[in-house]
Each structure stands twice: as C-alpha cells, then as structure tokens.
C-alpha cells in the first residue's frame, strides 16, 4: 500500500537557524503533496502544498522541494522561530489523511 513518512521523529534547532524536515513517499503516481503542522492542543494546520509538475514552491518563510526521482520532499523553514515549534506532517493529498507520527520540531531559544 501507499506510505508516506517523515525521516526523523525529532528535530532540534536554534532560534534563527534554518530547519529542514524530510519526507519520503512510496507511490510514484502521487501528484499532490501537502505539509501540515500541529501545535500542542490545536488542530492540524495547512502550511504549503506542491503539485508534481513543480519541484519547488515558496511561501512565507517556507519552501517545499520535491524530488520525484527519489520520491522525496522536504520542508525548509527559514529563520526558525519559537512559534514554529510543532509536529510536522507530510501527506500525498489523499482524502483520508494519514498523519503518521510526524517530526517534532523543537526550537531552542
């Protein structure tokens, strides 16, 4: 079956540094990818998405890179802030989002 997963359970960075969160997927036919984050006690929050006809998309302080050759995508957060502390998830835009264990980003002051 299709799987999507984050590489690391936890990522710790210093405030102001850039963060890179990596994700791998198994289905080469996937054509839409989404990043969500979940802060403690809150619902999942959409961050950014990318379609397979692109390999890079930028938002405010975030960039998503898609490498279809190795079925890998990454989320880059520039100048990480304490408010970025959350669990981050990637998914392939299926109806039933799977929300695996995610990567917990910890921002050290």
């Amino acid at each position, binding site marked *: 079956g299709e799987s999507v997963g984050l590489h690391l359970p936890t990522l710790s960075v210093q405030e102001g540094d850039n963060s890179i969160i990596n994700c791998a997927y198994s289905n080469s036919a996937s054509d839409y990818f*989404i990043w969500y984050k979940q802060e403690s006690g809150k*619902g999942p929050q*959409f961050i950014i998405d990318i379609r397979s006809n692109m390999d890079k998309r930028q938002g405010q302080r975030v960039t998503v890179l898609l490498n279809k050759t190795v079925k890998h995508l990454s989320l880059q957060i520039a100048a990480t802030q304490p408010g970025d502390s959350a669990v981050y998830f990637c998914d392939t*835009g299926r109806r039933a989002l799977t*929300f695996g264990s995610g990567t917990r980003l910890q921002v050290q002051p």
Partner: protein
Amino acid sequence: EPEVTQTPSHQVTQMGQEVILRCVPISNHLYFYWYRQILGQKVEFLVSFYNNEISEKSEIFDDQFSVERPDGSNFTLKIRSTKLEDSAMYFCASSRGARETQYFGPGTRLLVL
C-alpha cells in the same frame, strides 16, 4: 479568512450516553471530514462525506458513529453510546475538492466518564 468552526470546545459525558459534535465547514467547500486524536497519539481519519453521503470511512467508524449534514451549514458527528475509549479530541475538516487542501477546525475535546 474563512475557517472551520466546531462546537462545543469541550464536552463531558457519561458512558453509554449519546453525543453530537457540531461543525460548520467553510462555506464553499464540498467535502467534509471527521478525524480524532486520542491523547498522546496521532490524528486518525474517521470519515469523509460528500454530496450527502459517506464517501470513505475507516475501521474506527463503526455502527455507533454516524454523520449528517442537517442543513446547509452544519456537519455533525453522532456517537450513539459512548465508551470510555471514545475520549479524544475530534477534529472536523473541509475541502473544496476531493484531493484539495483540508482545513481543520479547532477540535472538540470529548471526555467520557
């Protein structure tokens, strides 16, 4: 910016009682979802709903659960006879299309005693 809203924010109920969790999806969205998150665990998909019928459901969504869109704005999740293990945060979400971004509400924390 439009957002998904959910009521109540917290609900405490006795085991065996029926509860109805309410959601108001974003107004031009056509697809609606319920997810739950047991404390300390991952968010789990329950059900998706489109055109007044269930389009997909998980193994968790058994006969004690039902969903309804009673009017043009609300989307509800009913748990007929609550069990202790139904205690969780329940999130509603909506999307414009079938494989488009889902926007989540703030959740209802359900505690079954």
